């Protein structure tokens, strides 16, 4: 095989570098433009725009609720998936990816079929005083549906990185499995679990497609920005959209901090 010449290496490097730079620019430029144009007005709008303030609080609360449910129910599932080598576990893992693959309005429609007033589950919940459609509960359901798989997937990776021998040693030192989970597994997986929860929360905050099908009102920030755009046009939407970007930056910063923390899951 003939070795490629230094000049062809240079051409490949230039093309690759150019492609990467353009992609980066494409991803960053719209957000930078939005923040540049709307950050100040967005922060000011939070002060005077009661609807935006209510949407922000609703978004934060429902995303936090969905994330807490995801953590409580998803952590044991993630541990099971990380520690089980069976076809059933592989099938469950594949099913968990489904909500990430389908378009989110379709996810909303699917949720509506299961949780809508006419459905068995939705009807029963309504009778119990827990209306889903058109309520914050619907927002939580939509957020949970689209973002929980991200948490489970990340938590599964975090658990998989904890060498089973730590758990084995802890058991030979007298701990029952639940105590091992509390004293060893969770502390060692904590960084990954927190990072996964942050990603889930951020994804929940930014959800629109499924929410708009289940609960248009009360409005989350994403629904409000769409509503403002269709009703008043671009200039009225910019402060709302910028506020949403600023919220999304919080978990991004958190993630960076976590990533630079010392790794706790290496064998020692």
């Amino acid at each position, binding site marked *: 095989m003939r070795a490629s010449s230094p000049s062809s290496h240079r051409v490949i490097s230039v093309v690759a570098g150019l492609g990467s730079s353009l992609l980066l620019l494409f991803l960053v430029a719209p957000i930078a433009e939005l923040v540049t144009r709307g950050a100040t007005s967005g922060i000011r709008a939070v002060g005077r725009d009661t609807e935006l303030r209510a949407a922000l609080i609703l978004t934060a609360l429902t995303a936090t609720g969905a994330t807490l449910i995801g953590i409580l129910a998803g952590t044991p599932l993630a541990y099971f998936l990380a520690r089980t080598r069976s076809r059933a576990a592989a099938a469950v893992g594949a099913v968990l990816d489904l909500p990430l693959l389908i378009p989110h309005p379709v996810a909303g429609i699917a949720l509506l079929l299961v949780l809508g007033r006419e459905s068995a589950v939705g009807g029963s919940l309504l009778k119990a005083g827990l209306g889903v459609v058109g309520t914050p509960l619907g927002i939580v359901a939509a957020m949970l549906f689209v973002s929980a798989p991200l948490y489970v997937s990340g938590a599964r990776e975090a658990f998989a990185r904890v*060498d*089973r*021998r*730590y758990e*084995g*040693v*802890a*058991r*030979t*030192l*007298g*701990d*029952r499995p639940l105590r091992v989970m509390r*004293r*060893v597994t969770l*502390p*060692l997986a904590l960084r990954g679990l927190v990072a996964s929860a942050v990603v889930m929360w951020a994804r929940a905050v930014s959800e629109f497609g499924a929410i708009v099908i289940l609960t248009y009102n009360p409005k989350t920030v994403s629904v409000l920005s769409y509503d403002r755009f269709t009703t008043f046009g671009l200039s009225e939407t910019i402060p709302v959209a910028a506020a949403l970007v600023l919220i999304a930056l919080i978990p991004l910063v958190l993630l960076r901090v976590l990533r630079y923390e*010392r790794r*706790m*899951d*290496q*064998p*020692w």
Partner: protein
Amino acid sequence: MISIRNLTARVGEFHLRNVSFDVPEGRYGVVIGPAGSGKTTLLEAIAGLTPILAGQVSLGKKDVTRYAPEDRGIGIVYQHGYLFPHLSVRENIDYGTGNGAPAAQEVSERLGIAALADRDVHSLSGGERQLVALARSLARRPPLLLLDEPFSALDPKRRTHARREVRALHREWGFTALQVTHDFTEAGLLGDVAILLDAGRVLQQGPPDEVFRRPATPYIAEFLGAENVLAGTVRVLADTGPDFVAVEEPLPAGALAPGYHALEFLSGPISIYTVGNAEPGSAYAVIRAEEIAVARTEPATSARNVFRGRIVELSTLGALGRVTLDIQGVQLVASLTARSVQELALAEGEDVWASFKAMAVHLC
């Protein structure tokens, strides 16, 4: 006592097959085997950390095969320590005992790690990590301690100290130990029982001295570092009584047991004399290098096997010298002290005499 019967386990594509052995109560067993022979899997199966497909693990009179790891009374120490990285050294050592258990303090002091107590485990060297892991398991005083190359990262001085302390604790506290090692010296120094494992099977077991001197197969002999493994043919000297070795005092017990014969082993042009119960036919003779004496002149020795040969290779490493002799086309390696090599003024190309006793020859 630990009793393993037909233990069969599978980890990925690796199989541990029908492993059986015993280590008597309060004794020290060593498992020797090449990398990938299943030593760690064996320890984990005994501890209940690897599911077994078949077989039985008994501790004393108790069948613990179905017991959870925490109920077996077994401690395990891995080569890499597996110290909990979110805990300090002290918290690691106290993990299984609660704060400041007397045994934890005693072990820390005896292993020389008491001063490390407040350190973060990330700041420890590999050897220190091994000592802390050892202390963590010992602190619980388990009836059975499993050790997976626990001294491998220690410098020679600390290794000697740690070995001595672990052996002393083993004697004082009376626990049973089973240690995995690559190190034949360590196996000889520590072990009461040696178990030779290869490809998931036990090849041989017995007292370390017996396993080293009387390997069951040429493969084991070579694995155990025997330098001289010769192929040849056994002939029973039916007309010669086994007392022809009686001049080689002292004879080990059983050397002249019923059924034992004087034997001649023909390897190429040389005849080697020994005694044993081998059947006539093809076999291998194993002679450990340290059993062969080298002299400048024909030795006035009681040894039955005396040969004249030429030195084809001579090397010294530290206090030991290694002399390769060519005896009528058959190569034999002798191990001498470096001082002996110097005193005898040995040099490559010179003719010397090699001798070894009939009892130094093991046929397999």
